[in-house]
């Protein structure tokens, strides 16, 4: 691959601004995992079906295996690594732990990100709305019930108070915070 084939992408991930050079065909998922070392986002199918690689791009959930890194130019991305802050679990993470909404944990980052988006849109979802929202994420271990319970618990515990703040950076790292849909 010759140098002029690379394009420059400016992207803010979990509040940290990055400038990376990528081939036009490089998937966002590979850029996050390999170029930025954020391996919390897992690849379950790379067919856009299982939802394991779900991240937020400008506040909207996307399958990072179905998006090119260059399409994220100028965007703000949130991955699972951006949920816990100052050593404190995000309320959804705390609820997932409390309800044991996971076994192997491989699909979990995708479920967490999808649930963040759901609660931002609908802070008080019914069980049917939760099941509908996570219908695009596949879990092979849990049978979903504990995941539904955890999302419910997080909603009831007031995760809504933190809506839109998951990626806001208040650190001294240079950042380009781009307002998400829900903030």
């Amino acid at each position, binding site marked *: 691959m010759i140098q002029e084939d690379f394009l420059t992408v400016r992207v803010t991930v979990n509040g940290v601004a990055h400038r990376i050079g990528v081939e036009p065909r490089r998937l966002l998922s590979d850029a996050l995992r390999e170029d930025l070392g954020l391996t919390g986002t897992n690849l379950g199918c790379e067919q856009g079906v299982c939802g394991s690689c779900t991240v937020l791009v400008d506040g909207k959930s996307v399958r990072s295996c179905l998006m090119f890194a260059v399409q994220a130019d100028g965007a703000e991305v949130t991955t699972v690594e951006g949920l816990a802050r100052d050593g404190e679990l995000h309320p959804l993470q705390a609820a997932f732990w409390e309800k044991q909404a996971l076994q192997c944990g491989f699909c979990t980052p995708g479920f967490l990100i999808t649930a963040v988006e759901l609660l931002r849109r609908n802070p008080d979802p019914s069980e049917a709305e939760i099941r509908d929202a996570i219908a695009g994420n596949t879990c092979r271990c849990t049978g979903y*019930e504990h995941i539904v319970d955890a999302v419910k618990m997080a909603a009831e515990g007031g995760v809504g108070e933190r809506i839109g703040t998951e990626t806001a950076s208040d650190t001294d790292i240079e950042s380009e915070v781009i307002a998400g849909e829900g903030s």
Partner: protein
Amino acid sequence: MDTVSREYRWIGKDLKRPEDPALITGKVNYTNDVSLPGMLHAAVLRSPHAHARIRSIDATAARELPGVYAVLTGEDALEFIDPVPCFAAEAVEERAIAVGKVRYAGEAVAVAAADSRYIAEDALDLVEIEWEPLEPVVDAEAAMDPDAPLVHENLDSNVVYDQTFAFGDVEGDFARSDRVIRRRLRWPRATAAPMETSGAVCRYDEASGRMDVWSNTNFLNFVAWTIAGTLKMPPHKVNFHPMHTGGSFGSKHVLGKQIAIAGALSKATGRSVKFMEDRADNLTANDSQGPERLYDAELAVTDEGEFLSVRLDAVDDYGAYFMFAITGNTNLMAQITGPYTIGSCETGIKAVLTNKNQQTVFRGAGSDVGNWVLERLVDAAADELGMDGVELRRRNFIQPDEFPYKIPTGNVYDSGDYPAVLDLALEHADLDHWRREQERLRAEGRYIGIGLATAQQRSTFSSTEFWFHNPAPATGLTTSPESVRLAIGPTGGINVTTFSPFWGNSPETVISQVVAEELGVDPSEVSVDYDSTAHGLPSAGPGGSRMTVMLSGAVRGAATKVKKKMFDIAAHLLEASPDDLELRDGRVWVKGVPMEDRSLSIADIGMKAYWHKLDLPENMESGLEGSFTYDHPYTSMPSDDRKDLGAFYPIMGHACHVSIVEVDVETGRVTFLKYLAVHDVGTVVNPRSLQGQIRGGIAQGIGITLYEEVRYGPDGGNMTASFDEYLLPGAPDVPNIEIHHHETPSPFTEYGVKGGGEGGRMVSPPAITRAVEDALAPFGVTIGEMPITPDKVTSWIREAREPVE
């Protein structure tokens, strides 16, 4: 009333898992997260043909592509790797990269290592292959024809194994029965499909002749040494590192192929190489497909509803290779007669090779199939005898006072209370209500059905099972131990090392709770890690619902050793006899002397043990650690004539599931109205994680009953190579599951624990199948196959007679 253990302080407590914080923050390292300096990425070129000879391969252009370090064909790889491990006596050789001929669509024909996966895939596009397509064999019954093309030319027939096992007076029992219930039953080919695919990173160091392997292969300290053979290396020169595993369900026991591909490329390039399956690789070539089995099944009964004998005749499609021989068929012999007092049984097994990816094991390992077949026969018997299925089951149950109970095959059931489990289920099922609802809704043209199954969940496998189908296994009959090392440091910190990797189960939870129970500390004070083969103690690893039982035994053994040394040290320092000491709240006390200055904390003793040799009893070594290898708690040899298979799966759980469904007769869609599961897996260690296993297992049972099937076209092409075609149940498809526990402690295991990892999947298919059949009873539909797809439901209704008014 549910019974829950009360006699332990920590065993049975509903604690959050220590495994979870790292998992929910994205901090664990799965195999695909491993990145080494200079690491190359591999991709695999797969056969588009199910059965074909490779006339020639030209990889010249591929090798010339910038960024490509190596392209290996099967022939090229012969220099670096030998055939992959196969645990069958039959001469079925498999190579990680095919040589000369391919035997299924998706088999590897060339591999490339390059600067990125993208470039490796580009390179493989440039490989030119001249094929000679052969006639594919894609149906097991057709493959049995003596004139069928041979999958392996060195064998005389595609029927690689053909044997009938008979136990007890089968002929006599059938002769004295009043009636024989007969069904033809077809279990579909499914696949484990964990969310994480399989893979490996291999780093070969030519200077030292050593290789490091980071792979999600699970049987690390059990059989990884056989993979060293595949790599043409002495086992002590290969170190297999334990990896966090994103689910296995049987599919990652032995990843010989994936490791061989990364290993061959690492040897060829002198660089670290990662090969991670993509989903298409996984669905076409992972070697984790389950049985595809056609049964002619018979149950001999009396007019009063007594079960006398069962006879099962199976044709099983094993696909192109034979890695674990017929373990999918031997497994169910552990519980072939179910919870019932059936006096004799027979099982005929024809294992057939075809041009498909091979069958190995998938959660349940064949006992899932056995349960479905037996419960289908029991439901059929209820229908034909005009008896209530619940009472028919009850009258044939082994009674609580009959344990330990030896079934005709020779396996022993340790304990159980099947009537109590059934009663608990009935107490919560409210079947009368649902029968009334059924009647009321039928009048409105709606169809709901009730299904109930009472079935076994064998646990704690003994690997004698791998070999007894073979009259004279070359290895003899192997065993399956599990070890841990428990170390208390100078500040009292407790660390336990396990030699099996994390694969989505809860080993750290179990270990912490057992240590807490034994040493009187809080579980949060226990740190658990996983060790590699270089430091490994004997361990068989997860599989066959064994880890909770085996880790409980191993940890208790190690804790007992360490406790003894602690008491010896404390007795010396307190000038007391070890027999007069007790361990409570993290301190060693002199019994009946509640004075803190006459007691020592674990940290006090740890410090003495590490730093104060001169204060220790004479001849005592410094340090405070103990290793313990727990062997299977109850296993015995089979007889030479194999009329008695010995105890090989004796720690016997049981469950009763009740499923209420509605079937939309216009669309064929099945919806759950209620799902109830009562499980008895002995003493419950952690209710929350057990319930997770049960619910997840039931979701997989829903999958195989309603959705999942690996389908091959007439040309042998795999038609389910993505999650768009291979349908897994999603959140809207799986109902909430009401769970109750009954606890019948095992008399043979520590704390009475039994394994519960597979029960959900083993017991749900017959309950759901019966529920759908019951809903469709007005149409006269009987169900003998799965998955029960909307297409099938609507066509069965079309073919059936008009509804009975």
